[in-house]
């Protein structure tokens, strides 16, 4: 039995279904991400765990205890909100102490635990400040300290990094992962940022239109997408429709990989290579864009436009307008059979 178990959850607002047939088990200490586009039901799911939204149907259990009858203030969960939701009229230390005061912890212990929590997020000397006097990244850390100081059964993170700039976000990702490992708190993160989900999670739950599309480790979900939606939502992908020939599956008459039935081939741009010998998909380089650590090439082929990513490792690359032949390894591609809608 998993630590946090969501069973057959459904949430409907009138005729609109926000979440449907959701089954999810989270193990103790695990870091799990709910990933999907806006309106996919990930935030609703988080709010049902938190208790702010009541499921229309289904059960949520924490450590074997049914949560559905428990008010949000009795669940003992730590939540970091997208807006951080710090109390603007309280100092940072008072913000962090609030949850402990509600638990009637003794004054001396509160002071000690607040100090520890602020030290953990690197704000040991900022306890006397007001939230307004701090940067977005610092406010984010206060929110994290406030949620963790109560030693919550589960830490819920609602798009916690979306209001930070790119550099701060990367720093915070590393720090968040480290703090979570250190405290061993079971964590559920809601995000629409695939890079964030890939970097932080033990497992990712990809959601779309209220349904779970795939659950798996970041590597699995990226390398072996379970549906066309996952393949296009997580990273970029090229898709070609392929026809069977006696020698294998062919795109526009060029044999690319083994196979016997009409199918759609998905292949990641970084897995496509240029070849000089024999079989492959001929094409012409339309644009070549330098992106720092890699090059991005758009190649026009008879099977459609193909995106190619090549590392900036000093090897020569075809220039714009040159003709090339594209190839990839069969094990890098994923197939979905034509006629079976993903």
């Amino acid at each position, binding site marked *: 039995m998993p630590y946090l178990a969501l069973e057959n959850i459904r949430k409907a607002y009138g005729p609109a279904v926000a979440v449907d047939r959701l089954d999810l088990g989270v193990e103790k200490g695990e870091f799990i991400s709910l990933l999907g586009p806006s309106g996919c039901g990930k935030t609703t799911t988080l709010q049902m765990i938190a208790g702010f939204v009541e499921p229309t149907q289904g059960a949520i259990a924490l450590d074997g205890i049914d949560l559905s009858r428990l008010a949000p*203030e009795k669940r003992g969960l730590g939540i970091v909100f997208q807006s951080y*939701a710090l*109390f603007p009229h*309280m100092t940072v230390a008072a913000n962090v102490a609030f949850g402990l005061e509600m638990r009637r912890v003794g004054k001396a212990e509160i002071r000690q635990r607040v100090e520890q929590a602020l030290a953990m997020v690197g704000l040991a000397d900022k306890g006397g400040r007001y939230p307004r006097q701090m940067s977005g990244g610092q406010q984010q850390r206060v929110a994290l300290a406030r949620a963790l100081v*109560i030693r919550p059964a589960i830490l819920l993170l609602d798009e916690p990094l979306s209001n930070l700039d790119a550099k701060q976000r990367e720093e915070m990702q590393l720090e968040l992962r480290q703090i979570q490992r250190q405290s061993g708190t079971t964590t559920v993160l809601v995000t629409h940022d695939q890079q964030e989900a890939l970097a932080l999670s033990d497992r990712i739950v990809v959601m779309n239109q209220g349904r779970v599309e795939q659950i798996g480790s970041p590597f699995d979900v990226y390398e072996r997408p379970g549906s066309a939606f996952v393949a296009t939502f997580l990273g970029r992908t090229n898709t070609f429709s392929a026809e069977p020939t006696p020698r294998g599956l062919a795109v526009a008459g060029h044999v690319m990989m083994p196979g016997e039935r009409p199918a759609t081939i998905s292949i990641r741009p970084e897995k496509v290579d240029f070849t000089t010998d024999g079989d492959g998909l001929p094409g012409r380089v339309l644009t070549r864009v330098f992106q720092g650590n890699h090059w991005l090439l758009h190649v026009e082929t008879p099977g459609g436009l193909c995106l190619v990513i090549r590392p900036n490792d000093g090897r020569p690359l075809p220039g714009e307008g040159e003709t090339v032949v594209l190839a990839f390894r069969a094990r890098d591609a994923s197939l979905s059979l034509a006629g079976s809608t993903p």
Partner: protein
Amino acid sequence: MNAQARQGWLLVAPATLLFVGIVATPLAMTLLLSFNGWSSTQGIVPTLTVQNYAEILSDSFFAEIFLRTLRIALWVTLICVLIGAPEAYILRRMREPWRSSFILVVIGPLLVSVVARTLGWALLLGGNGLIPLALHRLGLTSSPVSLMFTETGVVIALVHVLVPFMVLSVWASLARMDPATERAAQSLGASQITIFLRIVLPQAMPGILSGGIIVFSLAASAFATPAIIGGRRLKVASTLAYDEFLNTLNWPLGAAIAVLLLVGIVAIVVGWNRFIERRYSQVFAS
């Protein structure tokens, strides 16, 4: 002067002229008038004297009236806070279409003519009115006691018309509040009462204090309501000044009363404002 600056002066000129003409000039003339002398035979004596101020500050009759004005204004402000702040919070949590209709109910008193509204209160508060009879029936008074010409009556009628200002002011500061702070407090284990007292109320405090300024200054300078409900027997500063002007015809004394009322209100409001700014500048964006 460059063209842009000239254009700026031209643009503010109409409003400045209007202000100087209908606010600053009469105010300056009132101030001058308050330093003139007066006798019952000669009327206004164009001398320069502080006799009017000396009379007001030394006579306990005037002191009582000014104290009463202050007392009424403070009670009205306090009651408006107690009614208005929770009312604004409840309104904010209401859903449409209820919210729109109840906002209309809240600002309703402002839509009714002051005379009609106050005479309505006179009917309710009078000896045979609904409120004294109800209090008597409930056994709270041994016989129906009229609330007309009492401070209580004036306070009730003023609260009625001034509460919308408090509601709107608190409403504005609640609108700036991040609703997630309530949820955050709830997730940390706070009950609904704790959330209201420790999270919502402090964040609404700037609105309560600025609403308090509006309500206090309007209550202290109110004329129509104390004139009708309080009548001749229960004078406040504004009705006192009115009587000096139009009954005794002692304009200089009336002007001195008006000036003292103005100075008193301005002093209290400015001090209050200072307090708010000092207390909350660190916490809330201005």
